[in-house]
């Protein structure tokens, strides 16, 4: 292949969701001289940003303050967030959301024409911008349609990135399979941004779409970058049983309540404050009851389950989310998607019935270790969005911070990768070719190896089963070690994976196998991190170590891939600026505390 045919850009973005598109636009807008490539395994508008529902947090109203948003985020994170990063995040958020507004995002409005905000879990004030309950959909399509205007952006739609190309200590591109032809090709670049989203698909029951398999984490991890805080898995308290489809937190923000099989608002028993009557004008109260943080609500479900206070159905136990008292008009104007989903997939109309819900894996706080500039430890490699861990989310992300994270850190990654590309030499193609050949050989082995007897779907099922068993809402040393052992065994078995499909064009069987390989890789890192964090913090709850241990674990875990392919976990101090670790209180005790700190 001649040099002319080589695919080459200044900045290469892997992932076409919210963070990747925001990064690409940042480069295109601020550095029109740079050429940008976006590699995405699906057409960008299919990316899972599309499924985010409730909204996007940023301080815009006069009664709100950056200080409050910062405090909510840090206490929500159980003090594991880096405070310098949170401060920057909160400061930059409003500008980024206004930018989205100027790019056409159809935010819901107040009568005055200003954007409207709604309450959300763990937030002391109403600061969540929303576009009905399809916020992610509108954000993604606004970004995608906006990016179409930049001639400097070349899209590689339905290309699957398989490996980072690294030489001379810096990242210089990736290899990717073009699904339409099955060809594996190198795409060279001066700097690379990974924005491939989360990896909820390592669990059996998740709100995440099929594409969320953590490919970007795995390729960064294999390139020697650490995965940070992998043990923190967010269960969203309200998913539909069976499908795992998300019923947005906005349903509680608008006043929806959770009830057990006795009809009780059981959250009152879990230190989340006192329930107000539904007709009380102060309902729903912020940072109280149903507007507590997601980790606490999900944990409360398990406790209710143990007490026998949950309903049981064909897809496991559940409780009721009741929004009937909001009335049809409010549901249709504020929560139309909730009604659509509950009707289509739950078979019930929330205007007249309660919605069955249970906790479901939703979001990964952990990810590729980046600093506040979205840079990784590998020069030329940046990461943003759910695949990255800065960390602003710590041990538990607050609802409506993740979409904001996409644009704040997407834009930062774009700007910094552009600056890096300006100063960098072109990729050393000659020296990288052997890596491309090796990668081609690796994939050909998977594609062509003679019958080994293992099916992708079976290995995947075994992986998700063991993840739920050992790394679910409550964890033990024994359980995690068992999961770790099972995962190691699954990696062995993956060596004998036997594809049904050995053709080139749209070989989704091969892609599934590669995704499985990546998921096994990062699942092991997750299990090792969960094993080594012998405390309970936020979403990571160890029944054998039930307390938070700031003396030993006010630290981020960092999993590095060892020479033998197994993860090695170390720890790094959390950045504390102004908010020393405190007790994480919600409900009435929180109100009392807030009153004393303000006085």
């Amino acid at each position, binding site marked *: 292949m001649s040099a002319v045919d080589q695919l080459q850009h200044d900045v290469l973005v892997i992932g076409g969701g919210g963070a990747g598109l925001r990064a690409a636009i940042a480069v295109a807008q601020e550095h029109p001289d740079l050429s940008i490539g976006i590699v995405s395994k699906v057409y960008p508008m299919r990316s899972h940003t599309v499924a985010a529902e409730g909204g996007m947090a940023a301080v815009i109203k006069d009664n709100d303050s950056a200080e409050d948003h910062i405090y909510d985020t840090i206490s929500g994170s159980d003090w594991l967030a880096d405070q310098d990063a949170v401060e920057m995040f909160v400061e930059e958020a409003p500008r980024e959301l206004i930018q989205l507004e100027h790019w056409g995002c159809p935010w819901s409005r107040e009568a005055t024409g200003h954007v409207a905000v709604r309450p959300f879990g763990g937030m002391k004030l109403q600061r969540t911008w929303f576009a009905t309950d399809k916020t992610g959909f509108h954000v993604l399509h606004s970004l995608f349609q906006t990016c179409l205007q930049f001639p400097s952006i070349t899209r590689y739609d339905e290309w699957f990135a398989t490996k980072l190309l690294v030489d001379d200590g810096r990242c210089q591109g990736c290899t990717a*399979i073009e699904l*339409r*032809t*099955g*060809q*594996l090709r190198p795409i060279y670049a001066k700097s690379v941004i990974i924005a491939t989203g989360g990896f909820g698909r390592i669990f059996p029951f998740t709100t995440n779409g099929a594409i969320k398999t953590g490919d970007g984490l795995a390729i960064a991890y294999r390139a020697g970058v650490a995965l940070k805080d992998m043990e923190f898995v967010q269960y969203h308290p309200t998913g539909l049983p069976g499908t795992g489809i998300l019923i947005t937190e906005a349903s509680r923000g608008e006043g929806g309540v959770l009830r057990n099989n006795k009809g009780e608002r059981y959250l009152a028993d879990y230190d989340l404050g006192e329930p107000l009557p539904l007709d009380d004008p102060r309902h729903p109260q912020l940072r109280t009851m149903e507007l507590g943080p997601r980790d606490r609500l999900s944990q409360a479900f398990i406790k209710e389950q143990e007490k026998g206070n949950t309903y049981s159905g064909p897809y496991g136990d559940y409780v009721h989310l009741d929004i009937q008292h909001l009335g049809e008009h409010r549901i249709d104007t504020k929560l139309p998607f909730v009604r659509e989903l509950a009707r289509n997939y739950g078979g019930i109309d929330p205007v007249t019935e309660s919605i069955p819900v249970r906790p479901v894996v939703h979001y990964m706080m952990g990810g590729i270790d980046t600093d506040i500039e979205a840079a990784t430890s590998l020069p030329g490699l940046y990461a943003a969005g759910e695949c990255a861990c800065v960390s602003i989310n710590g041990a538990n992300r607050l609802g409506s911070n993740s979409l904001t994270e996409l644009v704040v850190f997407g834009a930062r990654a774009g700007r910094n990768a552009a600056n890096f590309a300006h100063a960098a030499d072109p990729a050393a193609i000659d020296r990288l070719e052997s890596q491309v050949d090796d990668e*081609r050989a690796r*994939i*050909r082995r998977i*594609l062509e190896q003679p019958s080994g007897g293992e099916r992708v779907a079976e290995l995947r099922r075994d992986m998700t089963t063991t993840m739920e068993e050992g790394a679910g809402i409550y964890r033990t040393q024994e359980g995690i070690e068992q999961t770790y052992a099972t995962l190691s065994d699954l990696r062995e078995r993956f060596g004998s994976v036997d594809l049904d499909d050995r053709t*080139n*064009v749209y070989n989704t069987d091969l892609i599934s196998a590669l995704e499985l390989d990546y998921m096994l890789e990062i699942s092991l890192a997750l299990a090792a991190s969960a094993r080594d964090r012998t405390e309970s913090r936020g979403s990571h709850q160890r029944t054998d170590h039930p307390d938070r241990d700031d003396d030993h674990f006010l630290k981020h875990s960092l999993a590095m891939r060892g020479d033998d392919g197994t993860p090695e976990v170390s720890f790094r101090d959390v950045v504390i600026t102004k908010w020393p670790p405190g007790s994480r209180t919600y409900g009435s005790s929180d109100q009392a505390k807030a009153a004393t700190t303000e006085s």
Partner: protein
Amino acid sequence: MDGEVLTQPVFRSLGWTWWTKRPSYALVFLRETSSVFIAVQVVLVLVLLHKAGQPAADYQAYLDFLWNPGMVVFHVVSIAFALLHTYTWFNLLPQTIAIRVMGRRIPGLLLVAPQFGAWAVVTGLIIAWVWWVGAG
């Protein structure tokens, strides 16, 4: 993984018989086909006007032609098509015009009903006029 790869998409379309594939398509096809009949009727009327200025025998011959059984069937089919076209077209108006009052789009019925009302009034007036002319 490398080298030339065969990609050879096949195109599949609804084809020229698309209008037979769904009742909704067939209805649209009939709606559009109705214009042929209505056009022929317009020509027939124009010829009628022309014949009115010709010798009476010519005029009478043309009237006889219009009243022959085949033409009567054609007239009946034409009026059925005209009714279908009118009915379906009136019902499409709400999709074509989006008027918003007090923040809500005005209901389709409010756009459709006046058309049918006006249609009924005009038809009534014509029948009355024909009856009046016939009686006078």
